[in-house]
């Protein structure tokens, strides 16, 4: 399968008063055509920074992309002109963010916002839609997300809708641009489980219908297991394990992934483990070598000096941990 998005060795940092926050520390990940990929990690591990780097919406300064490559269909995203970037964001990439409250403009109606997107993305394809067509497409996009009474919703302001409805609007907006790659950054974190379930099902089905690819960013292992084919586990700014979702979640290899899986409360009710001792490092002065080594119970001398490379342990399952090195 062709690689749609390819991120190689991405280092991103933030220059702040206290010094330089080295957040992303060599992120490698890729998304193939028509694939659903998960990016999982805890708060502050750099998931959102990764997404924002890909979309190039990080405020620079203070952010700085120190090194690395982001390629979309082979084109270098980081070297694109502003014009090309706008075009890319308009037609190829789309994003859903965690908080729909912040991604919808409170002073315009849903209709105004949705119409703008539909019209602009058509103009980008060199087509000019009649007012009627725009309206029809908006209504269709809303209907696709299972929204009741789309005509009325178009005249509503975001505050008049519930959280679940607003998130569905964001999904409708994301889908109406017919993008090839959707970056969904914790799209259901603020929602209740039954509503989360509805939205994820809908998203899943719509993506299937349109043949788009999705990168699902979340901290919920359950959501990832449900929706993605491949998953990347992120810790303190780097991907530490990646592989086919079910295989990886059934046999986690990296000590961090194992700790994380152990601390997820299960329905089988066997109790929860103590979790992982310590906490995510301070990015001002991150640990040398493997960034997980201060919290790792299996650490070796080499972990403190050299960041581990990826070791292949079969069938696309890769782990950045010396425990799985050839001579270990």
């Amino acid at each position: 399968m062709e690689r749609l998005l390819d991120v190689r060795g991405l280092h991103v940092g933030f220059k702040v008063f206290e010094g330089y926050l080295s957040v992303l520390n060599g992120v490698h990940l890729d998304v193939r055509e028509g694939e659903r990929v998960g990016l999982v990690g805890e708060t502050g591990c750099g998931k959102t920074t990764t997404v924002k780097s890909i979309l190039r919406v990080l405020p620079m300064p203070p952010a700085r992309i120190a090194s690395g490559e982001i390629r979309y269909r082979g084109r270098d995203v980081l070297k694109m002109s502003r014009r090309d970037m706008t075009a890319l964001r308009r037609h190829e990439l789309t994003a859903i963010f965690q908080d729909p409250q912040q991604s919808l403009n409170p002073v315009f109606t849903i209709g105004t916002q949705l119409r703008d997107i539909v019209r602009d993305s058509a103009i980008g394809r060199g087509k000019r839609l009649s007012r009627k067509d725009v309206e029809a497409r908006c209504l269709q996009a809303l209907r696709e997300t299972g929204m009741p009474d789309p005509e009325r919703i178009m005249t509503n302001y975001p505050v008049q809708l519930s959280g679940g409805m607003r998130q569905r609007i964001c999904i409708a907006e994301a889908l109406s641009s017919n993008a090839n790659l959707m970056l969904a950054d914790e799209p259901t974190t603020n929602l209740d489980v039954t509503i989360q379930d509805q939205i994820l099902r809908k998203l899943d089905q719509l993506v299937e219908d349109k043949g788009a690819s999705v990168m699902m960013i979340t901290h919920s292992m359950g959501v990832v297991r449900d929706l993605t084919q491949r998953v990347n586990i992120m810790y303190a700014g780097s991907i530490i394990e990646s592989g086919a979702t079910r295989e990886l979640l059934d046999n986690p290899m990296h000590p961090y992934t194992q700790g994380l899986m152990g601390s997820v409360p299960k329905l089988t009710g066997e109790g929860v483990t103590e979790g992982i001792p310590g906490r995510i490092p301070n990015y001002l002065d991150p640990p040398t070598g493997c960034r997980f080594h201060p919290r790792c119970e299996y650490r070796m001398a080499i972990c403190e000096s050299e960041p581990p490379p990826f070791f292949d342990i079969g069938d696309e399952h890769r782990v950045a941990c010396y425990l799985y090195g050839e001579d270990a």
Partner: protein
Amino acid sequence: MSETPILTIDHLVKHFPTKRGVVRAVDDISFDIGQGDTLGLVGESGSGKTTTAQCVVGIYPPTSGQILFDGAPIGVAYNRRSKALKRRIRIVFQDPGSSLNPKRTIKQILSVPHDVHRIGSRHDRLSMMSHLLELVELPPTDYLYKYPQSIGGGEKQMVAIARALATNPRFVVLDEPTSALDVSVQGKIINLLSRLGDELDLTYLFITHDLSLMRNVATRVAIMYLGKLCEIARTEAFFRSPMHPYTKMLLSSIPVVTAEEELLKPKKIVSQGEIPSPVNIPTGCSFHLRCPERLPICSEVDPEMVALDDDRVVRCHLFPGS
């Protein structure tokens, strides 16, 4: 469950009059908690679980109904409760980031309950505070003089738990104590709470929206929907055979991480509809609009709580009782 429940909630009602109508946050609920039990109160946002908890600690006086603690009625507002009572019932809030004063050291934060309740002489205070921190597994010398901002979220929540324990309570309300935390930290807090519960003989009212978590901490589970209870049962029975259609919908919506768990989930029930606004609750059973098994009667008559076997109470027309 022991013979006399430590806390009894009897037809509790809490309404909030607003400009847009009366918000029926808690609408006639009854349950009790036995000494040493952990009752898990589960519900989606707006289901009234936090309001219930706030009535128990006295943040709001109930509109009607009664709350009994050790057999004595306590259904009054906080400022009319005796200090002795306030010492017995304590609460831990959801977000330790906003429940701890950022301008005070942990020592100052922990000394507030001692000051208010005049516990211990000035001389003893320091050792009492050290003891509290040891209880929650934080080394006192490292933490007493720190500010909340310089410690992690999990550690902050431990300080909040220590503060709740400062008055030697018997009953602790935990209002989503781990939902602001990452899973790797959550485990530690949960194990800490269950250890403290055993050691200090505490009874918990544990509020959460996470059913998988509930499976691992609660001895009994109560499900709330729009201010009313749907089902109460002992944890194992609850997860083995959920009865109320809403409970089934909730359980089948949880994303799980292992194949064994998937086997435990009830048959997939497609979740539909939105949670109605508590200002405008549907007639009859409040769940009937979203219910996959609704009967004609559901839109007209609100079902009653019916006690079934196995220490289980269900409120649904599918189980008319005997």
